[in-house]
């Protein structure tokens, strides 16, 4: 992989800088600790894939970056900076400009993200007009360009289509076009290929990778699929019970996973050549985020757990520069 700069010295002017992010959902019955101290940097033009199972806090972290979580029930703490702006301190008006202008997001279900009563063309054009204040004719012209950019066949005709008239793959392309309408510096992708068929999924993945390289966007891509990380990531972070338990360059993490959870995830992922072999499944199930165990949250399922694991959350260790894992078994 060339053309990817990962100069940590430049981390101070990183595109995204997150420090000690915690997100809690508070209700009368319980407090759910969805994100519990996440810190990371993302350089401009870099692709970070956050891997995790359901309830690991990966989507909540992503939504916190855009402050898309319901304000009244959510307590967000820590520090989030995107393109030099303090996201958690933003006033409502600034937040509106920020969303779609600097950062935009694509979702798993394009049907719920698109407005069913407006045509695709209108929805793209409206986005541009709202942010850049250009004329409708100019916005329509840009909308056509965008649909061509995301490789929608016969784009001109598709501009007049409503979302329900499009296939799943085309809808996902239309949503990407809207997200890219104002040339964001950062694209957040929440499992955008999970609901798609295999032959369409790879098309959308390759399209996102191509657009990311052409436009030089930073991308944070949330998924449960190791294969997606293998195809698109520069860096990978593995999330468990609201914490990054491991992160590093994709080759490093996929080839030499350090954390027992990452190792377990790789061992339990079915891939070619495993026929007749018993899968090395991780026992048990992920913890309840309303009742997190003290210490390492993976300890109850971990074959190597000992007393010290349950005492305190393991510190970040870096046996190799750029490769972090939170496990007491790692030296250094």
């Amino acid at each position, binding site marked *: 992989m060339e053309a990817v700069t990962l100069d940590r010295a430049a981390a101070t002017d990183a595109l995204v800088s997150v420090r000690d992010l915690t997100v809690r959902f508070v209700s009368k019955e319980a407090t759910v600790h969805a994100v519990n101290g996440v810190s990371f940097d993302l350089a401009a033009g870099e692709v970070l894939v956050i891997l995790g199972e*359901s309830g690991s806090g990966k989507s909540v972290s992503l939504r916190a970056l855009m402050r898309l979580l319901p304000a009244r029930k959510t307590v967000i703490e820590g520090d989030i900076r995107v393109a030099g702006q303090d996201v958690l301190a933003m006033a409502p008006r600034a937040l509106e400009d920020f969303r779609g202008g600097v950062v935009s997001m694509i979702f798993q279900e394009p049907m719920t993200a698109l407005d069913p009563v407006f045509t695709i063309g209108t929805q793209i054009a409206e986005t541009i007009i709202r942010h850049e204040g250009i004329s409708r004719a100019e916005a329509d012209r840009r909308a056509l360009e965008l649909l061509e950019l995301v490789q929608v066949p016969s784009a001109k005709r598709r501009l007049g289509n409503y979302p329900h008239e499009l296939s799943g793959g085309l809808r996902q392309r239309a949503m990407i076009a809207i997200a890219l309408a104002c040339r964001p510096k950062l694209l957040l992708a929440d499992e955008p290929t999970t609901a798609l068929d295999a032959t369409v999924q790879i098309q959308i993945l390759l399209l996102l990778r191509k657009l990311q390289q052409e436009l030089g966007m930073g991308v944070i891509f949330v998924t449960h699929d190791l294969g997606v990380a*293998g195809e698109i*990531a520069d860096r990978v972070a593995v999330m468990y019970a609201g914490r990054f338990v491991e992160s590093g360059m994709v080759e490093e993490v996929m080839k030499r996973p350090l954390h027992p959870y990452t190792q377990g995830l790789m061992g339990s*992922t079915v*891939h070619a050549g495993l026929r007749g072999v018993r899968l090395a*499944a991780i026992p048990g199930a992920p913890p309840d985020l309303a009742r997190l165990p003290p210490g390492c949250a993976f300890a109850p399922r971990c074959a190597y757990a000992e007393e010290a694991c349950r005492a305190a959350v393991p510190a970040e260790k870096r046996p190799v520069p750029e490769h972090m894992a939170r496990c007491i078994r790692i030296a250094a």
Partner: protein
Amino acid sequence: MAIDTASAPRDRGGPAQPLLIVRGLKRYFPIKGGLLNRAAGTVQAVDGIGFSVMKGETLGIVGESGCGKSTTARLLMRLMEPDAGEVIFDGEPVGPGGMSLREMRRQIQMVFQDSYASLNPRLPIEDTIAFAPTVHGVPKAKARAKARELLAAVGLAPDQFARRYPHELSGGQRQRVNIARALALEPRVIVLDEPVSALDKSVEAQVLNLLIDLKQQFGLTYIFISHDLNVVQFISDRVLVMYLGQVAEIGPVESIYGAPRHPYTQALLASRPSMDPARRMTEPPLTGDPPNPINPPSGCRFRTRCAFAEDVCAAVVPTLAGAGSHDPHLAACHMQVPGSGHSRAAARAA
């Protein structure tokens, strides 16, 4: 009718008799629309599907959404009436004059993707598992005892779990309950429709291991439906690839995955993301989405997305054919048949 099958011979036709033969299964759904609610078209959901399942094997069915794999399962179970086709269970046709539906459903059980929707939320799981045997005439106490045995068999400690309700269980645990429920009538075949698709990866592996163990323990035959090519490869002995309501290719798992013959199977397999960042894909194997099953293309249904399509593909519907009369690996592609009129067919025959 009691279900104490210890005395009754379970196997009738012998080991060489396929446990299940499906022939010409067909189901069209009319689409109503317009002012007078007249039929505006038909979805050809399943169009002439045929296959057989040998005793003790696992047949995997793969295909993309809308290809008709779930409809096939529902037609097989008669949860939906087929427009045409027949099902033969261990040599006995299902339907009037043959095996009754009630008996067939005792022999073939099903597990669905949505583990929550397929359990009664107001029954403790023990009662859910015991429900069907009680309906079939087993005394309540006996059915309960059996339910507890089955809970243990699927890895849920009966003392801890028997009285719980579905909402008190995780997705993986609920799917274990669904499997135990399917086993309660001592069926010979279990149709698993995307049984692990809604589960997390770490839990998926647990359930797959369990399914393999249970198959051994209870001498089961599986039909395993999934969109996940890796999972199907892992669990199946033979694989059936569906495209727009028809069989594109069927054969032993090694040759389907090792030497796929249908261009669709080839593209489907090539679409799997690699786990190796050093070997990333550069071009997608296929462009576009699967076409709408309302008006499928003439001839070969895959031809609109196929790189090798020629005139013959639009004119003639390809039939399933192998390399010889005893070839277990069949593909519905003109390129496989010498003399079909496809330019690549002649080259292959030579």
